């Protein structure tokens, strides 16, 4: 699999390590009343879709950036990649 790195161009997936579903970016509020349940869902439960999946890959043997890769879990086709930092900042309404 080739991952289209937004800065470095196409890179072999072997250079990356895989973490999992991109929802792991959305860490729950640890001070909320519902924190125990929210963290149970966050740590243990997954959508696990057959089809398009947004997932976190770490360019460990490259520029050590975290990417969000959109990939089809049925065909292994990779449809795009973006810097996880950009996605996280946009979600917080922060610097773009």
């Amino acid at each position, binding site marked *: *699999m080739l991952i289209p790195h937004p800065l470095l161009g196409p890179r072999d*997936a*072997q250079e990356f390590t*895989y*973490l*999992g*579903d991109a929802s792991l970016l959305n860490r729950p509020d640890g001070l909320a009343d519902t924190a125990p349940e929210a963290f*149970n*869902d966050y*740590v*243990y*439960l*997954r*959508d*696990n*879709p*057959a089809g398009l*999946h947004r*997932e976190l890959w770490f360019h460990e043997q490259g520029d050590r950036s975290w990417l969000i890769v959109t*990939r089809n*879990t*049925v*065909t*292994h086709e990779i449809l795009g990649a973006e810097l996880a930092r950009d996605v996280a900042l946009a979600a917080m309404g922060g610097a773009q």
Partner: protein
Amino acid sequence: MRFSGFRVVKEALTGHHGWKPLWRTPAPQASYDYIIVGGGGHGLATAYHLAKVFKGKRIAVLEKGWLGSGNIGRNTTIIRSNYLLPGNEPFYEFSMKLWENMEQEFNFNAMVSQRGILNLIHTDAQRDAYRRRGNAMLLAGADAELLDRDGVRAMYPWLNYDNARFPIKGGLLQRRAGTARHDGVAWGYARGADLLGVDIIQNCEVTGFRIENGRVQGVDTSRGYIGAKKVGVAVAGSSGRVMAMAGMRLPIESHVLQAFVSEGLKPVVDGVITFGAGHFYVSQSDKGGLVFGGDIDGYNSYAQRGNLPVIEEVAEGGLALMPAIGRARLLRAWGGIMDMSMDGSPIIDRTPVDGLYLNAGWCYGGFKATPASGYAFAHLLATDTPHPTAAAYRLDRFNRGYVIDEKGMGAQPNLH
């Protein structure tokens, strides 16, 4: 129709005209007492034990494709009970005992071969860990022997003992472990269940659950609605997709695991060898092919095929251990979809929906568990209480903090 040596001779002399199909192909009835979703090893074993041990009536097994088309036909056929943790080891030893009596019980040749499994040791720390594991196995009634370097050399003199990184210092041997014919297991349970009146319905995909007032009423399928008092789901690999139809998210990711077989060779590996440090294990089939594998590819997948880097990695592990096979050619490679759970251990439990039960999360170790998984799931379906050996496999154990994490990897499915 019973199988026997006499029967084989008689059919050989009369042109093999007397063999009949091993199971019927019934049309689905309007409703059943029990519906098992998934006609693989675990589903068929569940139906068999439900009918035989727990005297269940009106049972159906619904299979989306053909019988045994999933992981029961895609594994590397190893059976063993060499686990460490108290939540696991009694269950797998129960499974091992069922394997030992399986063929006589369902009168079908599953080619169970107790040829022994050897886990190689390379360091003092690993020897300590395996001694502890061996003791845990003995406490649960299994067998275990700790071998030194000479003991391993007596069994397999041609391994590479002086690899610079992983010299072989010994091994943990379970002699009662071994292999079985994977298709034979599925066919044996299917035939056994069919003879007890279970309807095995192939090409019947479950497309939804009908749930009213928190209780399951039946399932929608590609062949129409079928009512049921209780529904058991045993579709490891696709558990996430199926349970999503009941509105559930599971502590499971689906991953692809590859397996390989070489061209046929003269007998060379008479047991099962695992080289955990090199991510490689191997046995030899009765046809002579080396059957081997390694780690999962490591990313979510439903593709039933993996990628080339893992093939290279597994082959490198194999060559590090067994330089002698360097010129053997790879005959086939294939992939199966694993339910990788968050702690590497399975789930056999009720669900928040009354009457809906789940058997899932077998990671890459479901084959060895087939008989006990079926027995324990049938026990749960029939009595609404967990089988004593499977009592730890609760769905809510993650929330309660009672994970069963053999490798101590935490909630990272691709590391188990």
